[in-house]
């Protein structure tokens, strides 16, 4: 589908001032109806970075984005863009443009007029406006739709117009508020790749808000996982996936099997936890003390399934095989232990599952797989 492709951006849209796209949030808080929507948030976004604010609804990610855009003013703290403190600067004076969740295209204007809307205020000479609009529409391969009205466009087309309308103004920072949530899955996956490529070529700072962890993983240089108005963890997609700093992050990014238990031994190199169905020995130490309650997280892809009951050794539990389903390139195996704990495993397509449904199996994982968190 070349219709969805995004072309290489025209040279004049590429960010040329490397410092302009740096965003710093220092101790930013926002109070909504006596609740902290965002609480003492510190965040430094490098110029040219693609950062995602990831979290469930109500975690403060959209509020944070709206404060950068100037649609909300922080009750505490300061937001700095390109070295300039924003204070109470209104949205129309910030070097920032937004792609809205609903696209918010002006329904009474053609595609070309929508894209040209902001150029008037950017003091672009009238003679250059048509060229700039044509370039931006060409970048999202929508030039042939310039005279259409927004209502005549599909969701994907509208989204690309919204992108062109924002980028044509050469913002130092582009804010994207769940722009893909209305697209169907296939189109969304294509757009994720296009958007990432476009961002790399433009060098513009992208701040992307999403509740979809796969989307964040696909596109971001860094992901800020948010919860209850705070950033739980910030890091590269690999860091937040492989070394989640809390049980919350572990559960939010990717799938997890959680076991609750009691710490029986802990030192700087290993932790032992007794759970209902056996013992866990984790070589990646957590911040837990012996005797304390703990939560153990094991990724489904770390778990191997074998026939027959588990031997009396750590990192193996006996379970009953409940279902096996093919999901793309892997098999999802669901088992339930004697204590009623559901254990999910994810094994590559082609690996034999040596048992039938209802059989007793062993779920086993290597000692470097479990993450241990305080309960």
């Amino acid at each position, binding site marked *: 589908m070349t219709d969805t492709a995004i072309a290489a951006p025209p040279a004049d849209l590429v960010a040329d001032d490397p410092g302009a796209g740096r965003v710093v949030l220092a101790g930013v808080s926002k109070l909504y109806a006596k609740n902290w929507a965002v609480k003492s948030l510190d965040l430094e976004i490098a110029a040219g970075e693609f950062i995602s604010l990831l979290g469930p609804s109500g975690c403060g990610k959209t509020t944070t984005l709206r404060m950068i855009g100037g649609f909300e003013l922080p009750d505490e703290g300061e937001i700095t863009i390109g070295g300039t403190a924003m204070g109470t600067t209104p949205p*129309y004076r910030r070097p920032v*443009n*937004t792609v809205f969740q609903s696209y918010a295209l002006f*329904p009474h204007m053609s595609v*070309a007029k929508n894209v040209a*809307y*902001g150029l008037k205020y950017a003091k672009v000479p009238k003679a250059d406006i048509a060229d700039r609009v044509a370039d931006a529409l*060409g970048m999202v391969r929508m030039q*042939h739709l310039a*005279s259409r009205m927004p209502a005549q466009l599909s969701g994907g087309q509208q989204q690309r117009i919204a992108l062109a309308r924002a980028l044509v103004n050469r913002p130092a920072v582009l804010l994207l508020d769940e722009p893909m949530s209305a697209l169907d899955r296939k189109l969304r996956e294509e757009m994720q790749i296009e958007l990432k490529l476009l961002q790399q070529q433009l060098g513009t700072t992208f701040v992307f808000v999403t509740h979809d962890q796969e989307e964040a993983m696909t596109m971001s240089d860094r992901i800020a996982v948010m919860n209850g108005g705070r950033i739980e963890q910030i890091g590269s997609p690999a860091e937040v996936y492989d070394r989640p700093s809390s049980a919350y992050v572990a559960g939010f990014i990717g799938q997890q099997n959680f076991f609750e238990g009691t710490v029986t031994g802990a030192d700087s190199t290993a932790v032992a936890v007794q759970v209902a169905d056996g013992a866990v020995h984790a070589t990646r130490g957590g911040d837990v003390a012996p005797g304390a309650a703990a939560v153990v997280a094991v990724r489904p892809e770390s778990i191997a399934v074998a026939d027959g009951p588990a031997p009396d050794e750590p990192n193996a539990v006996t379970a009953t095989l409940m279902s096996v389903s093919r999901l793309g390139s892997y098999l999802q195996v669901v088992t339930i232990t004697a204590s009623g704990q559901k254990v999910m495993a994810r094994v590559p397509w082609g690996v034999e599952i040596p048992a039938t449904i209802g059989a007793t199996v062993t779920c086993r994982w290597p000692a470097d797989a479990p993450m241990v968190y305080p309960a």
Partner: protein
Amino acid sequence: MTALALPAPRTAGRRLRWSIGVLAAPITVWLLFFFVAPFLVILWYSFGRKPSLYVTHANDVLSLDRYVEALNPTFLAVFGRTLQISLIGTLLCLVIAFPMAYWMAVKLPARLQGIALALVLVPYWTNFLVRTIGWQIVLSPTSFVADISRGLGLGTPQLLYTPGAVQLGVVYNYLPLMILPLYVTLERLDHRLLEASRDLGANALETFRRVTLPIVMPGIAAGLLLVFVPLMGDYITPSVLGGAAGSMVGQQVATQFNVAQNWALGSAMAIVLMIAILAVVVVFALLFRLVKALVDRHERVAIVEAEA
């Protein structure tokens, strides 16, 4: 790929049109019997004459004499005042109603909007005559307003039976008819469009001019029509508040029918009034079109639509 998967425009099938015809039958019959037929009768009467003191109309001799008679200096003076009161009244309604409707639709929390709407509607549902007589009491020389004026040593103001009293009365009486269509369009206005406009560099005034105003324009047009048309023909408000100095065309027509018993002349006056209303509406519609075309021309973005 250049072909676009756009939904084909829905064409009205023959069966669809047939069913619409059936559904439109009751209103068609209603309008034919109670609007078109009486209108044609009035039109017919306007070409006739009043043959004698005890006969209201006759069409034995057809002429345009009643129109000549209608356009006498007295009638034209009243007509001019009617037009002035109506245009100023409609404009005042718009100026007062817009901030009100905007506040109701945009600023007020959803749960309070119903209450605000009720506060607009309840006076409107109160009998027109009773409401207007209420103003007669307020404006009379024995009212508390006059008392306050006298207390301040300003003497007894002449408020009642002036064109000003009529102007006040019509704005009061027709205001809800402006607020309601404006509220409906403003309530449907997507606030994110306003944010998008500000995001793209437009300040509040520019956002209002380029986004809010064009989108709510149908509501403004509906409000202007809903106020201006009945206002031109109003005769209760000037009868109660206007006296001789503040009379309007509607009273002139009513006088010919009810007092002078000259239905031919009354019909001619009514037709003149209708033509005038139509002419004003058409002139303003054309003016609006012209302004819109000029603005569009000014903001045109010419793009060569190359195939992708």
